């Protein structure tokens, strides 16, 4: 089902946490709301659920305006960060709860609970209570309870953040597979950009309650709309150097290199990803010059932190990279891989723009 947010805003007194947020989630789409804590993503999700009132704007699910509809009448299921399992009910009773409220016949409830439990590998744990389960198992119960009634929309509020790193990776894959299998429209909130990139069909990046960019993970990564998105997505994040554009050449204190833009403009930030640049010998032309600050072997690559004008610049180098700390180097960036941003507004500079 389609979920449309039409200029929704949310204010708590004088504080506005969501500004005129508009986005459309297509049927069966996995939409991730990504942003730092306090950016309004959870509030936006809770507004879709109906747990938070909407200050202005409209929410439509499958074309029906649900802005003032009670949560229970929105046909929505939600997985909470805390899982919110009912501690006095067994796993089976927890999963059956939404069906029991809908007054389904007991035989039908039992059948559906078993079916869903099998889907999330909980068949053997149905008689246990939440307190007797591990974090991953609780997570599965919460998922099962959400999918058992085939909701129109699935909402997830950082469902993986309470799991340890290994389990998180595993559950991420399971979640993605299950969403694909069920084909239910999903809105997923996270501050973890890796989760966002791996799970989403499309990512909506939020900051300070405003939508920054909404696009596929590829384009969010390769073609960020502004400096916030560029800096938030990617690990390690994008490097930035301040300077000016001189007829298409980026000029900084210890930089001079060609870019993809044919512009002249003062007050510009040059951005480039650690994997897009290369370390060359000191004194080479068309590059940033600096010194090596430290280098860390990660496994399949080496992360080299350089100092350029006292600023750290991170470069992803070959596994075989081996240069002493303090060595004079140059950093070469292909013109096509440079991103330029307005120093003041943070907006991306593109070839059409003034």
């Amino acid at each position, binding site marked *: 089902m389609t979920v449309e947010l039409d200029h929704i805003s949310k204010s708590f007194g004088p504080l506005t946490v969501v500004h005129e947020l508009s986005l459309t989630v297509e049927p069966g789409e996995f939409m991730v709301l990504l942003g730092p804590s306090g950016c309004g993503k959870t509030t936006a999700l809770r507004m879709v659920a109906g747990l938070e009132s909407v200050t202005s704007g409209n929410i439509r699910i499958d074309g029906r305006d649900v802005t003032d509809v009670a949560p*229970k009448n929105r046909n929505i299921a939600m997985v909470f960060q*805390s*899982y*919110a399992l009912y501690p006095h009910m067994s796993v089976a009773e927890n999963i059956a709860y939404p069906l029991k*409220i809908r007054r389904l016949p007991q035989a039908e409830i039992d059948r559906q609970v078993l079916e869903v439990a099998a889907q999330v590998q909980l068949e053997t744990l149905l008689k246990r209570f939440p307190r*007797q389960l591990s974090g991953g198992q609780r997570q599965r119960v919460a998922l099962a309870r959400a999918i058992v009634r085939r909701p129109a929309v699935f909402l997830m509020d950082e469902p993986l953040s309470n799991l340890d790193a290994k389990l998180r990776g595993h559950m991420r894959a399971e979640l993605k597979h299950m969403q694909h299998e069920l084909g239910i429209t999903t809105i997923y909130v996270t501050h973890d950009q890796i989760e966002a990139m791996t799970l989403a069909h499309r990512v909506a990046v939020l900051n300070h309650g405003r939508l920054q960019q909404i696009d596929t993970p590829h384009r969010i990564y390769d073609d960020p709309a502004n400096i916030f998105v560029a800096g938030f997505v990617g690990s390690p994040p994008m490097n930035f150097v301040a300077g000016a554009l001189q007829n298409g050449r980026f000029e900084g204190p210890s930089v001079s290199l060609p870019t993809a833009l044919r512009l002249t403009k003062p007050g510009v930030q040059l951005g480039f990803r650690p994997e897009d640049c290369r370390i060359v010998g000191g004194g080479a032309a068309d590059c940033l010059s600096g010194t090596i600050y430290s280098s860390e072997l990660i496994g399949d690559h080496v992360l080299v932190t350089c100092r350029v004008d006292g600023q750290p610049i991170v470069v992803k180098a070959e596994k075989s990279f081996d240069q002493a700390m303090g060595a004079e180097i140059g950093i070469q960036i292909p013109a096509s891989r440079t991103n330029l941003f307005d120093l003041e507004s943070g907006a991306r500079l593109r070839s059409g723009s003034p």
Partner: protein
Amino acid sequence: MSAPQSVTARKSFFESRRFGELAPLSKVVVYGLLLVWTVVVLFPLYWVLITSFKLPIDVAYPPKYLPFIDYQPSLHAWRYIFVDLGNDTFRPYSNSLIVASISTLLALTVGSMAAYALSRIQYRPRLGSVVVFILILAAVVLAVAAGGVDWRLAVAVGLAIFLLALRTLGRRFKRHLGNGDILFWIISQRILPPVVAAIPIYVMFQKLGLLDTHVALIATYTTVNLPIVVWLMYDFFVAVPKDLEESAQLDGASRFRIFIGIVLPLAKPGLIATGLLVLILAWNEYLLALFLSTVRAQTIPLLVAAQNATRGPQWWYMSVLIIIMIAPVVALTIALQKYIAKGLLLGAVKG
């Protein structure tokens, strides 16, 4: 070799071997104090028990401690209470059972719903409206009592003026009261001892013709115990995570269903502890019962006190009555103890 050993020996006397275990010396002191206190608590019960089997002559000085050795136990007091008094014992007893249990159930039902509402819904009554209400109420009462106005007329006019004032005067005062104020107002009802209101309560039930009835006692006890229930249950409801209720809401449950199906079961330890406390208060209540009941609705504490009447204190009869009076409370407490166990909320969120 011997010196260090004696040092460790002395040390182990003052220090515990493991964290979470008392040092030997502390153990002796702590358990010693607990034993002394146990004797202090249990000895009166023992004394009541043996007194109930004593003849009047055995109660006299010097005290007799051990049945069969110091004196020959007798069942005369028990026979008097159960056979001679008979219905005069059983009627107050059943009165107490009815009044205490029904008033406790009522107080728990109404009180826990009020506490839940206070813990979840933000109330913001305007201070102006509250003041206006109190003033108009006072005026109505004055008009009826002193002015001789027909009460129906007075109430209707008062209500009309109040509604008008709500729309005009009430809006002018911007100050709000919050849930905390309401909660304090409720518990403040209990700061005033109920005795202060005993005479007005007596007159009220007299006018209604309800003196010496179960209804009067049940209504009074429910009212007196309500603030305690609200105050105690509020804390238990606040401790139930909101996520659970939001989840149930999305699962399709109504507010009332969430209260019955999710919140109450999770607050069960609190509900039972509060229920026991309120039940014991109602069961032992003496002063209001003295005002409100005479014969038909007389409760058991009154019967106990009555044994100290014209013939002087009848210790042996009193002891029998005290034993049958505390027996059900003790039994109930033991039966419900396991439900007061903690840890019910474990596994709800994170963990």
